[in-house]
């Protein structure tokens, strides 16, 4: 066999380097990604609490949380914090993904983001107003 043929016939032993399950601990940006992903756990947790309240209402055992329920208030603050983290990271992407054609150009990403965050602000203000107003309705 010629030298070239002999070299060609040798098996190639490439070395594989597996990533490992702790990859997200190795860079700050990876860690922030994991935090962003885990925000949904807090959103679901709070909604599960809410559904439990609906169930309690049905069973005639509903008790509204008071100012002394420190654990619940802390829980809600944490959930609200992560829900807002989710909202900001998610709505930031709206400008990236949604393409609104205008002629043969597209609406700038900043405009779409402004609408998205404007919507969040609007819903928050109007929603607060409505939900608080209901509390004052004489029943």
């Amino acid at each position, binding site marked *: 066999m010629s030298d070239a043929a002999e070299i060609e016939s040798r098996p190639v032993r490439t*070395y*594989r*380097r597996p990533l490992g399950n702790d*990859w997200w601990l*190795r*860079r700050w940006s990876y860690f922030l990604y994991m935090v962003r992903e885990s925000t949904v756990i807090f959103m679901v947790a709070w909604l599960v609490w809410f559904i439990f309240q609906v169930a309690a209402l049905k069973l005639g055992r509903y008790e509204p949380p008071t100012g002394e329920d420190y654990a619940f208030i802390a829980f809600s603050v944490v959930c609200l914090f992560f829900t807002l983290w989710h909202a900001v990271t998610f709505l930031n992407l709206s400008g*990236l*993904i949604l393409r609104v054609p205008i002629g043969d150009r597209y609406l700038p990403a900043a405009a779409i983001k402004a609408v998205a965050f404007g919507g969040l602000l609007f819903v928050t203000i109007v929603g607060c107003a409505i939900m608080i107003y209901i509390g004052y309705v004489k029943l």
Partner: protein
Amino acid sequence: MPEFVDVTIQRYNPETDDKPHYQTYQVPYREDWVVLDAILHIKDNLDATLSYRWSCRMGICGSCGMNVDGYPKLTCSTHLREYRQGLTIEPLSNFPVIRDLVVDIEDFMAKLKSVKPWIIRELEQPLGAGEYRQSNNQIDNFRQFSQCINCMLCYAACPVYGMENEFLGPAAIALARRYNLDSRDEGSEERVKVLAASEGIWECSFVGECSAACPKGVDPAKAIQQTKFDTVNGFVMGAMLMPFGKRT
């Protein structure tokens, strides 16, 4: 100003080694050197057995991608002055190592080919009809995604590719989109089955590290999310309007 910099390089010789080991070299410090200059100095003056890829040395060929202190970079575009206290160079993450700093890129090559990164038309325009005309706005639609130099830093940065090697990957999807968005191209339908396959765009969970690592500002993460959106739109429109033709 240090006289020398410690450059630690991951070495691997498949004929003699079971696994890689590290070797440190003292490289003269020059204010204007890039990491590639240090590697070239090592090969020319200190250790001729070192293997690596490089070519243009100006950030356009995409050959010299390596991990510098654990992060994928083009070594020709990374300055030595940022690493005065020393640095570690390893082969690009998530690719099998052939030898020293040379990785096996066949996987990427196959994926790139699979998305058909060329203009696909049902019928070529006859020469007499003249050139294909495109406005600047039409070119702007895909210009960013055409900047890709196939350097694979995005694959090295992507943890999904690292965990699941079957993933089609950022550059391949960005280049597919570059052609899907080109007004001369009619190949969106053909590319859908590759892009929208199980290990295609749907594997991506938008970590976004591909775009952070990209040296040319291609923003493959944006390309992938837009492709997901357009693909789903295409399916919905196709279901409602079939069998009318549609562009994805």
